[in-house]
């Protein structure tokens, strides 16, 4: 069975601090895809990044970076120099080739001014 665990339920940091959101996944398949989504208070889930299981290269996009490590089954997300607009619930998710997305329970991030 597939599973995604986001152990951090809620995190609060002061603006401009760096923050890392943890994600651990479980699957026996060798082909899978990992995602991060952001859900602001408005409710719409916003796609941030997709990685496939064969590409462990880390990625940086502006203030966002992602660290994918198959050895520890982790796909962590770091926000550098956080801003108030980053406040949201962040979901890590896993899908196999059938496209059925399995979401973690989310991490609620508060960026304090």
């Amino acid at each position, binding site marked *: 069975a597939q599973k995604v665990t986001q152990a951090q339920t809620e995190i609060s940091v002061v603006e401009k601090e760096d923050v890392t959101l943890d994600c651990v996944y479980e699957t026996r398949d060798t082909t899978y895809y990992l995602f991060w989504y952001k859900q602001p208070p408005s409710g719409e889930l916003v796609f941030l990044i997709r990685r496939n299981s064969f590409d462990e290269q880390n990625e940086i996009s502006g203030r966002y970076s992602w660290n994918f490590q198959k050895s520890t089954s982790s796909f962590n997300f770091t926000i550098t120099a956080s801003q108030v607009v980053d406040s949201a619930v962040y979901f890590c998710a896993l899908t196999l080739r*059938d496209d059925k997305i399995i979401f973690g329970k989310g991490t609620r991030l508060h960026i304090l001014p």
Partner: protein
Amino acid sequence: DAGVTQSPTHLIKTRGQQVTLRCSPKSGHDTVSWYQQALGQGPQFIFQYYEEEERQRGNFPDRFSGHQFPNYSSELNVNALLLGDSALYLCASSSGWGGGQPQHFGDGTRLSIL
């Protein structure tokens, strides 16, 4: 470029009633998935439609059914509503089936059961 649109935005029903939620996918997308998100939880996969057929189904009872039309839009029907069906229902669309394509989500329909 219109994104995923869902209607209605909010809905209030009573136990035992039936409800239909609607979704239009993002332009160029042909696959539609539905998710239920209870308060404080991650979205739970209900089912997915591609080429007007249900391709995948999550752990939801038969009270939850759906349909996809030739224009790729989709409906989610829930019969015999229970209090526990109160949730945000999210529709997501993507291009093709299989291959782990990113899914683009609508704003959701908030369903309240009294």
